[in-house]
C-alpha cells in the first residue's frame, strides 16, 4: 500500500511537471500568435491608445500613492542607516538608485498586475463567456487582433510610463523626508543623486519595466482568453493572473538583475 502511495505521489508530481511544461508551451504558442497580430492591430492605433488609457491612466492614483509612500520609507530607512556612518547626505542616492533599478519597475509591475492585469483578464474572460469573442470570429474578425493585441501592447507601453512616474514621485517622497524633515541640504541631496545615477541605471530600470509589462499583460490576456466561460472560471483565471504575474515578475527581476551586473 505504501509503495503504491509512493508511486502514486511520484506520478502525481510527474503529472504536475508535465502540466507546468504544457502550460509554458501553451503560453509561448499564444505569444507567437499574439506577436503575429501586433503589427496588423496597429492599423487601428486608437484601440491601443484606449488600452493605454484603461491600463495606464486609470492606474495612476494607486501608482502615485504607492510611489510616494515607498519613497518616504526609503528616505526614513536610508537616513536612519546612513547616519550611523555619518553619510546621511547620500539618502538621495540610495533612494534614487533603489527606485530606478529595482523598486520602481518591480512594485509598478506588481501593482499593475493587481490593478490592470485583473481587469484585463476578467474583461476578456467575460467577453468570451458572453459570446462576444465568438461573435467577432463569426464576423470574420480575429479577436486576438482586435481585442487581445491592443491590450497586450497597451500594457507594454503603460508599465514603463507608470514606473517612471512611480520613480519620480518616490524620489520626491525621499526628498520630503530627507530634506524637509531631516534637514539635509537640498543642494547636497540633488547633486549627489545627479552624480551617482548613470544612464545605464535608468536603462536597466527601463528594460526591466518593459519586460515586466510584457509578462504581466501576456499572462493577463492569456488567462482571460482561455478562462472557462463561467463565473467561477473567470474568477479563477483572475486569481491565476495575479499569482503567476507576481512570481514571473520576481523571477524575471532576478534574471535581468544578474544579466545587468
Amino acid at each position, binding site marked *: 500500500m505504501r509503495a503504491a502511495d509512493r508511486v502514486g505521489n511520484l506520478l502525481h508530481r510527474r503529472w504536475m511537471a508535465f502540466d507546468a511544461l504544457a502550460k509554458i508551451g501553451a503560453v509561448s504558442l499564444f505569444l507567437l500568435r499574439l506577436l503575429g497580430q501586433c503589427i496588423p492591430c496597429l492599423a487601428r492605433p486608437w484601440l491601443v491608445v484606449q488600452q493605454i488609457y484603461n491600463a495606464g491612466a486609470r492606474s495612476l492614483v494607486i501608482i502615485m500613492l504607492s510611489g510616494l509612500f515607498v519613497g518616504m520609507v526609503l528616505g526614513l530607512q536610508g537616513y536612519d542607516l546612513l547616519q550611523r556612518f555619518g553619510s546621511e547626505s547620500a539618502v538621495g542616492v540610495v533612494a534614487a538608485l533603489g527606485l530606478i533599478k529595482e523598486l520602481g519597475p518591480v512594485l509598478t509591475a506588481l501593482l499593475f498586475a493587481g490593478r490592470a492585469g485583473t481587469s484585463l483578464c476578467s474583461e476578456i474572460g467575460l467577453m468570451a463567456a458572453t459570446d462576444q469573442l465568438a461573435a467577432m*470570429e463569426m464576423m470574420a474578425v480575429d479577436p486576438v487582433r482586435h481585442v487581445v493585441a491592443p491590450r497586450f501592447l497597451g500594457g507594454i507601453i503603460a508599465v514603463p510610463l507608470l514606473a517612471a512616474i512611480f520613480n519620480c514621485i518616490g524620489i520626491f517622497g525621499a526628498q520630503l523626508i530627507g530634506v524637509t524633515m531631516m534637514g539635509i541640504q537640498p543642494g547636497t541631496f540633488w547633486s549627489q543623486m545627479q552624480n551617482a545615477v548613470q544612464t545605464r541605471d535608468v536603462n536597466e530600470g527601463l528594460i526591466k519595466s518593459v519586460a515586466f509589462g510584457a509578462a504581466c499583460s501576456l499572462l493577463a490576456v492569456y488567462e482571460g482568453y482561455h478562462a472557462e466561460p463561467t463565473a467561477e472560471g473567470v474568477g479563477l483565471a483572475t486569481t491565476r493572473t495575479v499569482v503567476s504575474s507576481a512570481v514571473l515578475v520576481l523571477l524575471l527581476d532576478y534574471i535581468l538583475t544578474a544579466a545587468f551586473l
Partner: protein
Amino acid sequence: MIDDNAVVTVRDVHYAIGTHVIFKGLNVQMRRGAITAVMGPSGTGKTTLLRLIMGQVVAQRGAVRVFGKNVARLKRRELYQLRQRVGLLFQSGALLTDLSVFENVAFPLREHAHLPEPVLRELVLMKLQAVGLRGAAGMMPAELSGGMARRVALARAIVMDPEVLIYDEPFVGLDPISMGVIVRLIQSLNRLLGITTIVVSHDVREIGAIADYSYLLSEGEVVAEGTPAELNAERKGVVRQFMSGTPDGPVPFHYPARDYFEQLLERPDA
C-alpha cells in the same frame, strides 16, 4: 437526396466531445432561398451543428460543405472570407458591450468594407430602420431589453448583406410581442432579400409557421424531416412527443438512474 441547389450540406457527420457522442452519421442540407428549421430537444447538438457549419469545430468523420466548400479544409483566411457571406445571430445577441448600438452594427463594415463615413452611417441607419431600432442608435447594449438586443444583433448580422443567415434559438426568453417581431423579421428578410435562412429552435409553433423545411434531431441523428405539415402528420413516437410537447415518452422524463426505492432504502454510508 443531394440537391444542386443546396447551400449547406452536412453529410454523414460524426462528432464527439471526449466520450460524449453528439452526432453519429448526421445528414442535413439547406436549400438556397429557403427557411430551414433544425429542431430537437435540448442537448441534441443543435448549436454544435451551427458551430460545424461555421467552421468553429471540425467533425471527426464526414463533411460539412458551405457554398460547395468543405469548411474543415479551409485555411483561416478562406474561412474568414466564407464567414463574410454568412451572418450568425447568437442566442444571447452577443453585442459588444463597450460599443453603442450604432457602433455595434457598424462594426463589420468598419472592419471589412472601408466605406466613407456618410455611406457607412446611411447603411447602418437603414439596417437599424429595418429592425425598427433606428431610434435606439445611441443607446448602449446594457440599456436594451432582450428582444431589442436580439434585433440589434440581427441588424449587425445583415449589415454585410449575407447570402446565408443563421439564427441560434432566436425565440428563447422573449415575450410574445418580441417573439412575433422576430418571427416576422426572419420571414421578411428571407422573402424580400432572398437570404437562405437556417433557424435552430425548439419553438415548434413559431417555426412551423415560417419554415419551408424542417429537420428534427434526436440522439445524434435526424429522426424526421419534411415540411411542417409532414412533421405534424408523422406517427413516430419521438416526433409525436416533441411536436405535442408531452413530458414523458420515448424521450424519458427521468435522467437514467438506479432503482428509486433501492436508493431510498439504502443507508447513505453503506
